[in-house]
C-alpha cells in the first residue's frame, strides 16, 4: 500500500486501454495537458476484448486497488464487434466479483473514443478518487505479494 | 364486448346528441358501454408542462376507475377527452416522476401506474367492429351524400402519443363514411385547427379559422361535415356563416343504422 507525504492512501490503479480508441484518447488528454492522477498506469491492448478476466484478477492479486477497462464505444470498435464481447464478459465478471463480496466499485468499464481526451481524464480522476475513498483492496489480494 | 365509458361533461349538457347516439349505436353494434362511476371532468385541455400534476388528477381517477371494467380501456367519444386522457396515461409510461407525484396525491385511493388505456369510439368501430362488418349493418345507406370528415387537432396530435391515425393524411373517418355508403370528401383543412377555445378571448380568430376550414370543405364539394368534437362543432356552426351543416359522426351513424326518425 502506498501513502503520500501527508499519509493519505494512494491506490494503485491499472487501466487497460484499447489501442485504437481509448489509448488514443489517453494520448489526447496528454496532448491537451489534462491532468489526472499519476497512480493510474495504462496497459495497451489491441482491443478491449483482449482483456482476459485473468488479467484483472492478476492485477488485484499483485496489489492493484482498482482496475478500469476502456474501449471504443459500442458500435465503433476498430474490429467491429470486439467491445460487444467485452461488455458481456465484464458485466458477468463484475457481477461475480460483487457476488463474492468484492467491492463492486473496484472495477469499471468505460467507453472512451480517440476524441474524448477530456472524458478520459475526467474518468480517471473520478475512478481514482472512488478507489482512494474505498481504501486498499483487501478482499482479493495475494498476501504473499504484499510489500 | 364491454368497455368503460367516459362521456365527459359536454356530453351531459350541450352535446347530449353525441352521448345519446353513441350509446344507441354502440348498443346496436353489440358494444356495451359501462359508464365510469362518479367520473369528473377531464380538464378539457392537457397541460404539457411537466410541473402540472393536480390538473391531471381527474383524468387519472377516470383511468384508474376504468381499468376495472372490460379489458381496462376507457372509451371516449369526445375528441378532447380522448386527447387529455390518452396524454395523461402516456405520461406514466415516460415520466417516473409524474407517476411518483400523482400517487402521492392519490394517497388513500388505489395506486395507478398507467396500466389502463384509452380508446376512441372511432377506433372501436375500426378495430373491434370493423368497417366491413359495419357496412353490413347499415340499413339506410347514405348513398350519394358527400361528407367531409373534420378531424381537427385533438384526435391526431401529438401523433407520437395518440397514434390514432396518420396525422397528416388520416383515413379512419373517410373509411367510416365509405362504410355508411357515402362518399368522403378530402380537403386540406381537415386536420387544421377550428380556433378552439380562443372563441372566448378572441372570437375573430375562431371565426377566421372555422371559416377557412369550412371554405376548404365547401370548395371540395361537401354536402355536410362530421366531427367528433363538441367545440369544433360549435366553432364550425356558430362562428361561420357558411351554411354547410356540421353533425356528430355518431348522429350520421345512427341514421345509417336506422335508429331514430327520418
Amino acid at each position: 500500500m502506498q501513502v503520500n507525504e501527508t499519509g493519505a492512501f494512494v491506490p494503485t490503479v491499472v487501466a487497460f486501454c484499447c489501442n485504437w480508441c481509448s489509448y488514443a484518447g489517453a494520448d489526447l488528454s496528454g496532448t491537451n495537458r489534462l491532468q489526472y492522477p499519476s497512480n493510474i498506469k495504462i496497459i495497451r491492448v489491441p482491443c478491449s476484448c483482449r482483456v482476459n478476466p485473468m488479467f484483472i484478477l492478476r492485477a488485484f492479486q499483485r496489489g492493484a486497488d482498482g482496475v478500469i477497462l476502456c474501449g471504443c464505444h459500442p458500435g465503433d470498435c476498430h474490429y467491429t464487434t470486439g467491445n460487444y464481447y467485452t461488455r458481456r464478459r465484464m458485466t458477468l465478471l463484475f457481477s461475480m466479483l460483487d457476488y463474492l463480496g468484492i467491492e463492486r466499485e473496484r472495477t469499471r468499464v468505460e467507453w472512451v473514443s480517440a476524441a474524448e481526451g477530456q472524458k478520459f481524464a475526467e474518468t480517471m480522476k473520478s475512478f481514482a478518487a472512488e478507489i482512494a475513498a474505498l481504501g486498499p483492496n483487501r478482499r482479493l489480494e495475494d498476501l504473499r505479494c504484499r510489500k | 364486448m364491454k368497455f368503460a365509458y367516459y362521456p365527459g361533461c359536454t356530453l351531459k349538457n350541450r352535446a347530449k346528441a353525441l352521448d345519446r347516439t353513441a350509446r344507441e349505436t354502440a348498443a346496436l353494434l353489440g358494444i356495451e358501454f359501462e359508464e365510469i362511476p362518479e367520473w369528473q371532468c377531464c380538464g378539457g385541455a392537457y397541460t404539457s408542462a411537466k410541473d402540472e400534476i393536480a390538473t391531471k388528477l381527474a383524468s387519472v381517477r377516470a383511468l384508474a376507475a376504468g381499468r376495472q371494467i372490460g379489458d381496462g380501456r376507457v372509451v371516449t367519444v369526445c375528441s378532447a377527452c380522448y386527447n387529455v386522457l390518452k396524454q395523461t396515461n402516456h405520461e406514466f409510461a415516460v415520466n417516473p416522476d409524474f407517476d411518483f407525484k400523482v400517487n402521492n396525491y392519490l394517497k388513500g385511493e388505489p395506486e395507478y401506474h398507467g396500466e389502463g388505456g384509452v380508446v376512441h369510439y372511432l377506433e372501436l368501430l375500426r378495430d373491434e367492429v370493423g368497417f366491413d362488418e359495419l357496412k353490413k349493418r347499415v340499413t339506410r345507406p347514405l348513398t350519394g351524400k358527400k361528407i367531409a370528415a373534420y378531424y381537427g387537432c385533438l384526435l391526431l396530435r401529438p401523433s407520437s402519443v395518440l397514434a390514432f391515425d396518420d396525422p397528416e393524411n388520416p383515413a379512419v373517418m373517410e373509411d367510416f363514411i365509405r362504410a355508411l355508403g357515402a362518399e368522403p370528401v378530402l380537403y386540406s383543412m381537415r386536420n387544421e385547427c377550428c380556433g378552439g377555445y380562443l372563441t372566448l378571448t378572441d372570437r375573430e380568430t375562431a371565426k377566421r379559422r372555422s371559416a377557412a376550414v369550412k371554405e376548404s370543405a365547401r370548395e371540395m364539394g361537401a354536402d355536410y361535415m362530421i366531427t367528433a368534437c363538441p367545440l369544433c362543432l360549435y366553432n364550425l356552426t356558430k362562428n361561420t356563416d357558411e351554411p354547410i351543416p356540421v353533425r356528430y359522426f355518431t348522429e350520421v351513424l345512427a341514421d345509417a343504422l336506422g335508429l331514430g326518425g327520418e
Partner: protein
Amino acid sequence: MQEMMKKRAMELLADGTVTRVIGWRRGEFSYDISPAVFEDAAQIERDFVWDAFCGANVSKYLIRESAKGRVLAFLKPCDAFSMNQLLAEHRVKRENVYLIGIPCAGKADIDRIKARGIDGVTGIEEDGEAFVVHTIYGDERVGRADVLAERCLVCKSKRHPVYDELLGEEGEDLPDDARFAGVEKLEAMTAEERFAFWRGELSKCIRCNACRNVCPACTCENCVFDNPDSGISQKAAADPFEENMYHIIRAFHVAGRCTDCGECSRVCPEHIPLHLLNRKFIKDIDELYGTYRAGEDDETKNPLTSFTEGDAEPAVVRKRGRA
C-alpha cells in the same frame, strides 16, 4: 427399468450397433456408484445398475470413449443436456454415439439419508413418492423430498434434448422458480456478508480438482491451471487469493456452457456449494441476455460468444441490489 436397459444394451451390443456401453457400476458400497464402460453382455449382466443412487453424469466419459468407436450411453435428462453441449462444442462426434434417454425422478443424496440416522445402507428402491432404503438392519421408508439431492429438488427439466431412442415417457421442462433461491439469498446479503460466506466456503477447498474432473464442461485437453505457460498454474491454492482465483476462473470458463447438472457440488469432498457460482452466471445471463439453457440445442449461440447492440453496460452491476 434396469432390466429394460440391460436388455436393450445387450441387444445393441449383439447386433453390432455399438461396441461398448456406458452405464453405472456399483463400488464398495451400494450407494457408491460410478459410471462404467461395459464391453460385453456378461459384464452388463453382472455389474450394470440403475437405481436412485445413479446420480453421476455419464456424458463426459463419452469424449474419451467415443473416440474409440461407437458407444451406447444411457442419459438422464441432466446428462442429455450436458451431452448436447458437448456435441455443440464438437467434443463428441454424434455419429460415434448411440444415445438412449431414460427418465429420472430425482436421485437420492446418501448424506441426507445418513443424516436421518439410517446406516448400513445396502440398496435403494423407488416406491411412488417414497424411497425404500434397504439396510443391514432392515428396510426404511423415507419421503422422496426428504432425501433427494438439492439439484433434483430444483430440477430444471425432465426432457431429453438429444437422444436416439427413449425408454419410458418423455418429460417436460420444469419451472425455474426454486432453482435460483440460493443465489437470491446471497444476493440479498450485504457485500460483507457475502464475502464472509464465500471466504468460509472457499477456504475449505483442498484443490483436489474433483469439481473440475467431474464437470462435463471442463473438458479441456490441458487445463489452464495445469499449464505452466498460462501464468496462473497452481497445484494447490496457497492462499485465499488463489482459492478465489481458481473458482472464479473455473466458473467463468464454464459460463454459458454449464448445464447446471450439479456434479461439482455433488463430488466436492468439502461440500462447498460450487453450483451457487455457476447458477449465479446462469441467472445473470437469463436476466441480462434472455433465458439461455446450455445444451438445449446446438444452434443457439452461447451468450458469451454473441451479443446484441443494446446489451446492458457493465455498470448495471453497480446499480443492482445491495452493496
